[in-house]
C-alpha cells in the first residue's frame, strides 16, 4: 500500500471483484456483439429494423453494472447492510479530504468509462444517437449522492433511506427533464456538475464526523423508542410448543422483509395507476402486475429468508425437519403479509370509471363457473405463487454456503446473457424456430428425466439420512401429485387448446411445480447444520 488511492482500490477490488469481473466480461461481450450485429442483421429479412431496439436491449444490463459500481464505491461490505466509510482507513495518516475525494473521483471516472463504452461501442454502432457528456456528469452526481448518503454516520440507519428517497426523486426528475426536453448538452452538464460540490461537502462532513467517532443522532426518536420499550412488555405466557417458538423466531427475524419491500413499492404503483388514462379492462394489466409483483420479489428475497441463523438455532433441540417446517410456515406468513399493502391499493382500480362495468361484461361473456374460478385464482394464486417463489429459493440460503449463492448468481447471469443472444438468433431465423418446435418434446422429455432423477436422489437421501419419516416423504409425493393434477385440470379447462398443445402444457406444469427444491430443503439445512 503506497498511497491511499491504492488502499481504496484494494478495498473495493477485494470486496466486489466478482461483480466487477462479470461486469467487465459483459461490457466486452456487448461491445463485440454490437460490432457484429449490424452486418449480421443486414443479411436477414427485415432484420435491420430491429437494430436500434436490439442495441438498447444489449445495453440494458449495464444498469446492473452501474448499480454494482455505485455500491462498490459507497458501501463498506459486499452485503448491502454495511454502510459508512471504510473504518480501517480512518487511521491512515491522510487528510479527510483526501479520503473523501479519491473514491469520489475514481468512482465517477469508472462510471464515466462504463457509459463511454456503452455509448460508443454498443449504442452508437446500433444506430442509437445518445449524448456522451451529460450522462457522465449525471452518473457522477448520482454516485456522489449515494456516497454522501452512505458515509453520513447516522445513529438511526433508516434515516438514510428517508433522505435517499427525496434526493433520488429530485435527481431523477432533473434527468427526466433533461432527457425529455432535450436540454442542450452544456447546460445539462453544468446542471449536474453543480450538484457535485454539494455532495462533496456532505461527504466531507460525514466522513469527518465518522472519523472522530461522531454520529448524527436523532434524540427524539431514541426517546420514542425508550418509551415504546418501556410500554411494550413481552408476552407473559410461555409458548405452547417449541414449534410455535421457532415460528415466532423466524417471523420476527425474516417475515417482514417481503412486506416491507412491497410497502415501499406500492405507493409508486398507486401513483402510476392513478395517472394512467386507460379506464377499461386494459387497466387490468397494471392490476395483474401489482398482484404478481410479490411473486417476482419472492424469488429475490427467498435466499435471504433461507438464512438459518446458525449456530444459535443449530444448538436448539429441534429436528432439522421441524426447522424447515417453521421456515415454510414463515414463508406463508410472509407471502400473506406481502399482500396487505396490495389490498390497500386494489380498491383504487374499482373506483376508476368503467373498470367495474367492463369487468362485469367480461365475466358475463365467460360464464359463471369460469368467472368464479378466475376470481378465486386471482385471490389465491398470487399468494401461492409468492409462497412457491419463497419456498423454492429457501434451500440456497439454508445451505449457508456463500459460494453457492455466488456460483448461482454467476451461472444465472451467464445463462441470461446466452438466453438473450439465443433469443435474438431464434427471432431472426424462422427455420431455427421450426427446428426448435420439432425438438420441443424431446427437450421437455429430457428435462422431465432430469427432474425425476433429482427427485429420486433427494427422496432417497432424505430417508437415508433419517431426516424425515418415510410416511412424510410419501405425503410430499402425494401433495405434489395432487397439485400437479389439479393445475393440469384447471389449465386444460381454462386455456384454449389451439393456443398451445396439451402435452407441452402438461409437461410445463410438471416442470413448473418444484419438488426437489422444496423436498430437498431439510437436506440443505442438514448439510449446513452438521458440517
Amino acid at each position, binding site marked *: 500500500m503506497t498511497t491511499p488511492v491504492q488502499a481504496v482500490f484494494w478495498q473495493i477490488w477485494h470486496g466486489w471483484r466478482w461483480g466487477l469481473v462479470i461486469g467487465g466480461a459483459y461490457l466486452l461481450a456487448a461491445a463485440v456483439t454490437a460490432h457484429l450485429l449490424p452486418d449480421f442483421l443486414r443479411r436477414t429479412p427485415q432484420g435491420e429494423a430491429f437494430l436500434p431496439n436490439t442495441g438498447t436491449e444489449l445495453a440494458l444490463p449495464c444498469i446492473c453494472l452501474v448499480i454494482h459500481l455505485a455500491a462498490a464505491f459507497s458501501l463498506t461490505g459486499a452485503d448491502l447492510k454495511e454502510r459508512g466509510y471504510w473504518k480501517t482507513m480512518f487511521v491512515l495518516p491522510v487528510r479527510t479530504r483526501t479520503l473523501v475525494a479519491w473514491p469520489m473521483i475514481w468512482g465517477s471516472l469508472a462510471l464515466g468509462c462504463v457509459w463511454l463504452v456503452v455509448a460508443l461501442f454498443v449504442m452508437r454502432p446500433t444506430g442509437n444517437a445518445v449524448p456522451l457528456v451529460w450522462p457522465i456528469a449525471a452518473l457522477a452526481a448520482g454516485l456522489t449522492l449515494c456516497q454522501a448518503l452512505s458515509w453520513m454516520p447516522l445513529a438511526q440507519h433508516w434515516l438514510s433511506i428517508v433522505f435517499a428517497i427525496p434526493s433520488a426523486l429530485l435527481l431523477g426528475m432533473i434527468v427526466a427533464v433533461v432527457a425529455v426536453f432535450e436540454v442542450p448538452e452544456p447546460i445539462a452538464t453544468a446542471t449536474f456538475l453543480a450538484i457535485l460540490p454539494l455532495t462533496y461537502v456532505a461527504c466531507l462532513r460525514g466522513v469527518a464526523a465518522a472519523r472522530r467517532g461522531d454520529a448524527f443522532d436523532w434524540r427524539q426518536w431514541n426517546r420514542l423508542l425508550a418509551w415504546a420499550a418501556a410500554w411494550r*412488555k413481552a408476552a407473559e405466557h410461555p409458548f405452547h410448543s417449541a414449534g410455535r*417458538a421457532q415460528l*415466532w423466531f423466524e417471523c420476527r427475524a425474516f417475515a417482514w422483509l417481503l412486506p416491507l419491500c412491497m410497502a415501499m413499492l406500492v405507493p409508486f404503483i398507486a401513483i402510476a395507476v392513478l395517472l394512467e388514462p386507460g379506464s377499461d379492462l386494459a387497466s387490468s394489466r397494471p392490476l395483474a402486475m401489482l398482484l404478481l409483483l410479490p411473486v417476482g420479489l419472492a424469488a429475490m428475497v427467498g435466499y435471504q429468508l433461507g438464512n438459518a441463523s446458525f*449456530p444459535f438455532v*443449530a444448538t436448539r433441540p*429441534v*429436528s432439522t425437519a421441524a426447522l424447515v417446517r417453521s421456515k415454510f410456515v414463515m414463508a406463508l406468513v410472509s407471502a400473506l403479509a406481502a399482500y396487505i399493502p396490495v389490498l390497500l391499493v386494489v380498491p383504487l382500480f374499482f373506483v376508476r370509471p368503467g373498470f367495474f362495468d367492463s369487468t362485469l361484461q367480461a365475466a358475463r361473456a365467460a360464464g359463471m363457473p369460469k368467472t368464479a374460478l378466475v376470481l378465486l385464482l386471482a385471490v389465491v394464486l398470487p399468494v401461492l405463487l409468492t409462497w412457491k417463489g419463497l419456498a423454492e429459493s429457501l434451500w440456497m440460503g439454508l445451505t449457508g454456503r456463500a459460494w453457492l449463492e455466488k456460483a448461482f448468481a454467476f451461472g444465472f447471469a451467464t445463462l441470461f446473457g446466452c438466453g438473450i443472444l439465443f433469443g435474438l438468433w431464434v427471432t431472426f431465423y424462422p427455420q431455427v424456430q421450426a427446428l426448435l418446435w420439432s425438438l420441443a418434446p424431446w427437450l421437455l422429455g429430457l428435462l422431465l428425466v432430469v427432474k425425476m432423477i433429482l427427485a429420486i436422489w433427494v427422496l432417497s437421501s432424505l430417508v437415508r439420512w433419517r431426516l424425515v419419516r418415510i410416511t412424510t416423504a410419501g405425503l410430499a409425493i402425494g401433495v405434489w401429485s395432487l397439485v400437479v393434477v389439479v393445475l393440469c385440470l384447471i389449465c386444460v379447462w381454462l386455456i384454449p387448446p389451439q393456443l398451445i398443445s396439451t402435452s407441452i402444457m402438461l409437461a410445463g406444469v410438471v416442470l413448473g411445480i418444484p419438488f426437489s427444491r422444496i423436498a430437498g430443503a431439510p437436506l440443505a439445512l442438514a448439510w449446513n*447444520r452438521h458440517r
Partner: protein
Amino acid sequence: MLANSFPSPDHVIELRGVTRRFGAKRALDNVSLAVPRGIVFGLVGANGAGKTTLIRHFLGLLKAQAGTVRVLGLDPVQDPVGVLSRVGYLSEEGDLPGWMRVDELMRYMRAFYPTWDEAYAQDLRRQFALDPAAKVKTLSKGQKARAGLLVALAYRPELLLLDEPSSGLDPIVRRDILGAIVRTIADEGRTVLFSSHLLDEVERISDHVAMLKGGRMLFAGELDEIKQSHHRLTLRFENELRQPPALGGALSWEGRGREWTAVASGRLEALTLAASAAGAEVVEQNALSLDEIFLAQVGSPSAPAEEVLP
C-alpha cells in the same frame, strides 16, 4: 482409558479416533476422549489447537470424518434433539440474535426445554443485573456472556459445554462464569466441559484436563495425575555442558554450564535414574503449576536436542 463397552454409561462424552480436516489442514487428528459423569473437564490448548472444533463435534455442528462421537450415549449428528435438549452451550462469540430482547430470549428458550426452571432463570437474571427490556445487541460483551450463560443454565442441563467462556471478559464476569460452573457441578451428577486459555482457572476448578496441540491430544486425565507426572528438576553435572543434555521425558531446558533445569514428564524415580545415568545429580525438585506444564508441552515447538547453541 476407554471402557470396552462403547458408549459406556459412566461417560457423558466418548470420542474414538475422531479425525477432521479442513482443506489440507488437520484440525483434529485421531482424537480419543472419555469424559466421566459428574466432573469438571478442562480443555486447554493454544489458539488453533482444535478446542472449538472438538466442542463443535460434541454438538453435532461438525461431523467427524473418521471415528465416532457419542454424547450422553447418543450420536449428536443422528439424534440432535436427544443430545441438545440435555446439553447447555455457551459459545465464545456469543451468537445470540441481536434483535431479541432479554425477556424474549428467555421466553423463546423456555419453549425448547421441558426442564426449564423459570424461578431459577429469573433469579439468575436479577443476579446478573440483566434488563429484561434491553435488546441483546445493545448489551456489553460481559452482559452478553451473562445472558448466554443464563439461557444455558436455566434448564439445568446434564452437560454444560463452555467454549472459551471467559476470554476477553472482565474479572467480575469471569467470576460469575466460574461460580456458575461450581454451582452446576455441585448439583448431583452434572458435568461441565470447558475450554480456556486461562490455566489458573482450569487448575482451580477442573478434575480432569486434556491438552490439545495441533489437533492431537497430548494428554488427558485427572489433573492430580498430570501434575504428579510433571516435575521441574535441577540437575548438576560433573562437567560443563555446552547444550542441554539428552534426558528421556525432558520437555524443556534452561541453564548453562554445570547446572541445568528441566521440565520433564514421567515418574520421578525413573527421571532420577535417567539423570544419574547421564552423570548428573538432582539437586532440586519442584511441583509445577498447570501453566508451567502447558508452556513446556506446547510452548516450545522445537525439540531441545535440535537447538543449536553458539
